[in-house]
């Protein structure tokens, strides 16, 4: 157990701070604090140039092994990078799904040819990925996959038909990894494969979903005879479920520390708003603000405990439920601190607009990547060993 930074870590932290200060300027200053696609002021072309700026400096793939073209940084430094990136106002990372979720899975499960083909594009900030798991009638029931793919033996290509939903940022991505049923008549998590499919082709339609925030970060993706090369399955054909689940494991990874730095920024905005409008004098809001600050500090300790060597296995299961409900509470707190003014949209008030977005967008946190209900089932069944929920029918 060690919360003290080594001298080397302190130097590294200063290095990241300096780099961000020097580079998140000029045209990139417009990206400061941007969340990502779906936001009105988000400039996707600029965000891609920013990804390339990061890549050139070697900040993409810092956690990948060196053999895979990464920097192979130890955990402590990765944490520092993510924290300082967000602290400096670094925008939402268009490359996140490719770099943080897809690439580690590719390194674990991909063929050398697949790795050679895809890792460099991700590492260079030139190719962007989307995740095709959820389906409209499946929701939390991920194994209920109806998207199907058959091998067109003649052309050596997979032909995909179906629909995915809740695909973040697909409107800006180049590729999508699709969990598809490749064995006709198979049930549940059997007979699935994880296929790598180019998005820019006639058989694919991406339609943004308007959210309660007014923006459209998520999309529906329709596959209507979409095609990809026969070799582009990640892991063996028919064993896509295992690979898909392994990929989900990386969602709980080190980037959660960066997410927490973003949360800290949001809390700071709440505190500033409360000080400005007098809400800071209200004893009940004071309790809630203090509680938010204390629980956020605990999210960080919790992540450090889970990520640490020999990390606590029970604790790993509770992290998502804890942070998503923390943020939902923060969103409600933001709205309550804003008070009457929170109901009025003022484009010229960036702090207020951001807090309104925090309030509304936080409602997604307890739903995506496993709803509260799914999380509690997982905790009860896997961490506590309680009986499994019964499923009916096939």
């Amino acid at each position: 157990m060690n919360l003290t930074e080594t001298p080397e870590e302190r130097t590294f932290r200063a290095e990241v701070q300096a780099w961000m200060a020097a580079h998140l300027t000029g045209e990139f200053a417009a990206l400061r604090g941007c969340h990502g696609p779906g936001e009105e002021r988000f400039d996707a072309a600029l965000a891609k140039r920013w990804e390339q700026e990061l890549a050139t400096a070697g900040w993409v793939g810092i956690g990948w092994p060196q053999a895979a073209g990464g920097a192979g940084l130890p955990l402590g430094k990765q944490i520092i990078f993510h924290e300082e990136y967000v602290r400096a106002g670094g925008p939402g990372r268009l490359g996140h799904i490719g770099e943080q979720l897809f690439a580690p899975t590719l390194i674990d499960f991909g063929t050398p040819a697949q790795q050679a083909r895809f890792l460099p594009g991700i590492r260079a900030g030139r190719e962007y990925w989307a995740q095709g798991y959820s389906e409209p009638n499946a929701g939390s029931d991920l194994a209920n996959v109806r998207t199907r793919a058959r091998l067109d033996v003649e052309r050596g290509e997979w032909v995909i038909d179906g629909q995915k939903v809740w695909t973040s940022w697909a409107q800006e991505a180049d590729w999508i990894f699709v969990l598809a049923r490749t064995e006709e008549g198979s049930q549940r998590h059997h007979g699935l494969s994880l296929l790598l499919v180019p998005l820019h082709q006639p058989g694919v339609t991406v339609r943004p979903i308007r959210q309660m925030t007014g923006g459209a970060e998520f999309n529906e993706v329709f596959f209507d005879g979409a095609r990809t090369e026969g070799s582009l399955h990640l892991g063996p054909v028919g064993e896509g479920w295992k690979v898909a689940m392994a990929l989900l494991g990386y969602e709980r990874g080190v980037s959660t520390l960066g997410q927490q730095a973003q949360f800290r920024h949001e809390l700071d905005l709440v505190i500033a708003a409360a000080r400005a409008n007098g809400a800071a004098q209200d004893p009940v809001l004071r309790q809630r603000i203090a509680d938010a600050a204390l629980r956020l500090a605990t999210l960080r300790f919790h992540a450090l405990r889970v990520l640490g060597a020999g990390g606590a296995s029970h604790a790993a299961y509770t992290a998502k439920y804890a942070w998503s409900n923390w943020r939902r509470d923060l969103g409600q707190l933001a709205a309550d601190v804003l008070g009457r003014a929170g109901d009025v949209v003022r484009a010229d008030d960036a702090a207020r607009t951001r807090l309104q977005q925090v309030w509304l967008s936080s409602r997604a946190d307890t739903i995506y990547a496993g709803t509260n209900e799914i999380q509690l089932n997982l905790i009860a069944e896997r961490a506590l060993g309680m009986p499994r929920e019964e499923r009916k029918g096939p």
Partner: protein
Amino acid sequence: MDLALDDDQQAIAQAAADFLAEACAAPAMRAAADSADGMDRALWQGIVEQGWCAVAAPEAEGGLGLGEVGLALLAEQLGRHLAGVPFFESAIEAAALLRACGNPEPALLAGVASGAVLVLAAHATHADASTTPAGDWRLDGTWPQVPGAAWADNFLLLIEGESPRLFWVPAPELAVEPLAMIDTTRRSASVHAHAVHVPATALLAEGAALRTALVHARGLAAIALAAEQVGVAQQCLDLTLAYAAQRMQFGRPIASFQAVKHRCAQMLVAIESARSAVYGAAAVADAAPEATTLSFHAAEAWCAACDAVRYAAQEAIQLHGGVGYTWEVDVQRYFKRAQANRVRGGDPSTWRERVAAQLLDAAP
């Protein structure tokens, strides 16, 4: 002692439910919410024609004689449909204050009953009234966020300060600037008065009498807005029940999962408690209570309703899953209205602190 609805009360509640189910079904509600100014004028006309704006007035005065309970029953149904009409602003909030002031302008109240929209402008950033040599008043000020202002025919302008004053001003005298809202089902506008001259008769109340009237009207408005919150909460539950019955996950309707059942049940507990609080508080209000009694029961209704709707709207989104987060599904509109109402009526903690002062600080 009996708090079940009597026949007249059941009849008006049912009539309102039936009328709004037709006149303010979801497509009409969405159309109004997404329209330029948010008001459904055809609906308003229908409401006026049914006499709802005079539901509380005694029958002798041409009203329906159903008092605060009648207002609460209508507000509940209007909340359930997020109706884009200034019923709360005009027939409840402004009318309550006008009555509490002693109503020196009968035409104004009659106007409200017949659908002329009267809106209370409060919370000025700065406002001032001064007498002129001609015996008129000159009014200046800015009321930055006035719900219903863009739909107003007349305003009640509240000028706070050591000795507060309340003036009646026709809308054309003022500059009204609509605002972009998060909750588009009820719009606010900023209201500006610049050297507006009104006659001496426009001063409706001032000083201590006005303060007393404001507290009384605040209580009545809170009860009715609480009723609206109950309607919002009920619709959140009903939408969720309908969705949960048909949405299949893991081969079962999600309504069959105990966690879903218990959360819906807890929504009902909160809603039925809040409904009892609102009906009870409205019945108390109709019995001409003392100021502390009205204030206590207004707090009761308001806190219960805000708690119920916060929980119901939260769970409605949550139990709808991903689609609950989308624009297309109505729960987001109910969620936003619940919060807009809450901050409008004042945080429940403020109301609870008033009650705490009654219970804990008075000489025992």
